[in-house]
């Protein structure tokens, strides 16, 4: 009976260790990808871990565990290996707040990779972004890749923003819009890279 109890306890401990090992393995893969990306990137990057998220319903921000001490300044651009994720809006010594690209106050000048059509991409607070003020004759279609155009000074040209999932006409009928699925995973991002140069 005692042996059975001990066996159960050991089994539980082993299960817990297996879970921990799995978590460490997944973290290892993520960090390895980040490191590979950082080495290959033309920018000087600082990696930060996400330690908090926006507590309210009308902003989309994350807080990372790196700040001024790691040379991060307000206005710097945050990315993941998949693409643009946001920009730094507040910095303290050891933390920084990053406004994500789906925040309604976020907008960046972008370009469609295939047709070089320009437009302004803004956040909607949901899972998609919106490219607004497209002329009716704009050459844009579903599956097009959208990149930063470099016209918004702080964002380097060519950062992946997302992929077009829907193109529609504005209510007024004067312009069109495109819905874009962000390239970076905004909901589950655990680490971000801040471009410091």
């Amino acid at each position: 009976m005692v042996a059975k109890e001990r066996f159960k306890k050991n089994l539980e401990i082993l299960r817990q260790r297996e879970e921990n090992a799995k978590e460490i393995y997944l973290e290892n893969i993520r960090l390895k990808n980040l490191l590979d990306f950082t080495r290959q990137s033309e920018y000087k990057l600082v990696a930060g871990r996400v330690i908090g998220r926006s507590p309210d319903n009308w902003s989309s921000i994350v807080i990372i565990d790196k700040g001024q001490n790691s040379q991060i300044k307000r206005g710097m651009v945050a990315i993941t290996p998949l693409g643009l994720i946001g920009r730094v809006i507040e910095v303290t010594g050891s933390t920084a707040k990053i406004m994500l690209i789906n925040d309604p106050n976020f907008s960046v000048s972008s370009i469609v990779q295939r047709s070089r059509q320009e437009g302004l991409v803004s956040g909607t607070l949901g899972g998609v972004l919106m490219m607004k003020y497209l002329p009716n004759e704009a050459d844009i279609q579903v599956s097009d890749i959208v990149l930063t155009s470099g016209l918004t000074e702080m964002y380097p040209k060519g950062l992946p923003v997302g992929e077009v999932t829907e193109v529609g006409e504005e209510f007024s009928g004067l312009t069109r819009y495109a819905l874009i699925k962000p390239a970076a995973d905004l909901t589950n991002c655990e680490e971000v890279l801040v471009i410091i140069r």
Partner: protein
Amino acid sequence: MKKSVVFIFLVLASFLQVSILDYVKVFGVKPDFLLVGVFLVSIIFPQKEALILSASAGMLKDIFTPYSFGINTLLFAFFSLLIVRLGKEISLDSNPIRFIVLYIVSFCNTAAARFMFFFLGNTVPLHVFLRAAFLGSLYTALIALLVFKIIPLSEKTV
């Protein structure tokens, strides 16, 4: 006993609000656990303690909110005072009344925060505000009903 449970809830609510609540969003909104905490402390604690705890909860929320340090501290303290005063006028013992009061408080809190944001030059689109005000308040009030079942509230501890 009750006081300590509410205090633990408040601390836990702060952690929940800035971490896993993002994964339980419904129609893009999440409940405001900290406001539920403010409601709880206002019912359970005497006025002075309720005010201090509510302002602390607001400060915790402000730390994680962009561009708005102080707004939630002020609003939470104000609404706490309002709930304490309301509790002296009407009975807040039944869950339907608590639900209605919390819905109204949450709605007013959202509206007041948007108003203040507007004057700080930080606009919130109307559709986002309406979603947060109507659905967010409903979600908060519904979650509060669950919390009231876990933490039974009967009379004020003095």
